[in-house]
């Protein structure tokens, strides 16, 4: 299937879940999950960088419009996707390189965990710090706690979704 078409389809599913479900799954003051990040983190690694940046920007902005957080996700998603290749090359000591192309769905779960969490953390750090911009120094540690617990929350969701859908689909 055409890659662009397939990615658009997957994105619509992720966006719908983010807006309809994850958005109302916030645990009071403590944590706010952004499960749609898995879509960006599962983008093919061999996609050209400008395309990756533009997809991240568009996806972030899309969610921003529906959650009244204009620009916050767009900024954080582009930052995360820009750091991604460097992070992959750092942890790819334990990587299965099948053929010449790296395919994320074929990695083992511990590699996926160490791949997902730090990148999710980068996004959340940027998002919550920017969100609290005017007030950030007043409640620095409270913000840090929220960033950490939200990252964990998002990570658990992403990990489950990965385990259920991506791994199974690659096993076929």
């Amino acid at each position, binding site marked *: 299937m055409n890659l662009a078409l397939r990615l658009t389809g997957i994105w619509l599913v992720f966006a719908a879940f983010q*807006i*309809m479900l994850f*958005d*109302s799954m*916030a645990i*009071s*003051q*403590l944590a*706010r999950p952004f499960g749609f990040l898995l879509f960006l983190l599962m983008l093919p690694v061999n996609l050209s*960088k*400008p395309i990756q*940046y*533009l997809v991240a*920007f568009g996806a*972030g*902005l899309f969610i*921003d*419009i*529906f*959650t*009244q*957080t*204009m*620009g*916050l996700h*767009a*900024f954080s998603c*582009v*930052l995360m996707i*820009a750091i991604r290749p460097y992070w992959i090359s750092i942890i790819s000591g334990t990587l299965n390189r099948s053929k010449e192309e790296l395919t994320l769905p074929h990695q083992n779960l511990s590699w996926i965990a160490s791949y997902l969490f730090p990148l999710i953390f980068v996004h959340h750090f940027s998002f919550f710090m*920017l*969100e*609290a*911009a*005017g*007030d950030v120094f*007043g*409640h620095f540690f*409270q913000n840090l706690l*929220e960033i950490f617990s939200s990252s964990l929350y998002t990570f658990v969701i992403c990990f489950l979704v990965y385990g259920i859908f991506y791994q199974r689909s690659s096993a076929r």
Partner: protein
Amino acid sequence: MLRLLSFLSKNQNLFLFLLLEAVALSLVVRFNAPQRHAMGDSLLEVSAAVQMRKRNISEYFYLKEGNIQLQEENDSLRQILDSLRGKLHVAEALIESDSSRVGMIDSLRSHEEFVYMPCRAIRFTHSLSRNYITLDKGRLHGVKEKMGLISPQGIAGFVVKTSPNFSLALSITSYGVGIGAKVEDLPIKPTFTWNGEDPEHGTLKWIPLDVDLKPGMKVLTSGIRSRFPPDLVIGYIEGLKEDSQDGFHEVSVRLATDFRSLNKLYLISLEHKTEIDKLREDLKQ
């Protein structure tokens, strides 16, 4: 010029990255400026319409709680109605006995200065530093920017953006929002601000030590240069903190509105009031 172009093309990934981040940052700055929200009408309309569908589905699960809330509000309104009815009888009797007191009718009508419009919260947040409430009424229903928003318990926020069918309000539990306040009948007019930590508390700052405050006292809107009419409940005094260096009280206020579960709300229009005030001013001259 050619060198510049070749430099750009060599580092095009970096420049695209910087460009996108700059655009995103400018969006953040523009859309989150205090007291206003620059999101386009059509974007608000679309996003609110989607949120509305979701809200309609999830509302079925909260019907019971909603009914209990309405029942409570109904009871308190009935009490107010009874006391007002009593006052009305007294006033009518007075007017009959003394026709020079016609002015009292005027004061009885004062509540008409404010127009209340019921609405529903479609989506809201309470844990961010700027919390927005999406409402199911918009320009076509007569909603205007700067209208006050109250819950049955107390004040909640004010409208910052309208689209034809929806509007967006900023909650008073947002960074940088100040509300003119007073404490029962005491002669002080402090400013109420959110404490920035949880959706239950706010603070009154710079209250002289000689003002006699007790926990449980009502904090009300002062109505001075405000989007709210006077005497609406903001919250209740919970604790006093003496700031020994400055010689002022810092007062912790428990908010009356439950920002974790907003549903039925009311928009208040002060338009009639400003019109009436203007007429009165004109008459004086």
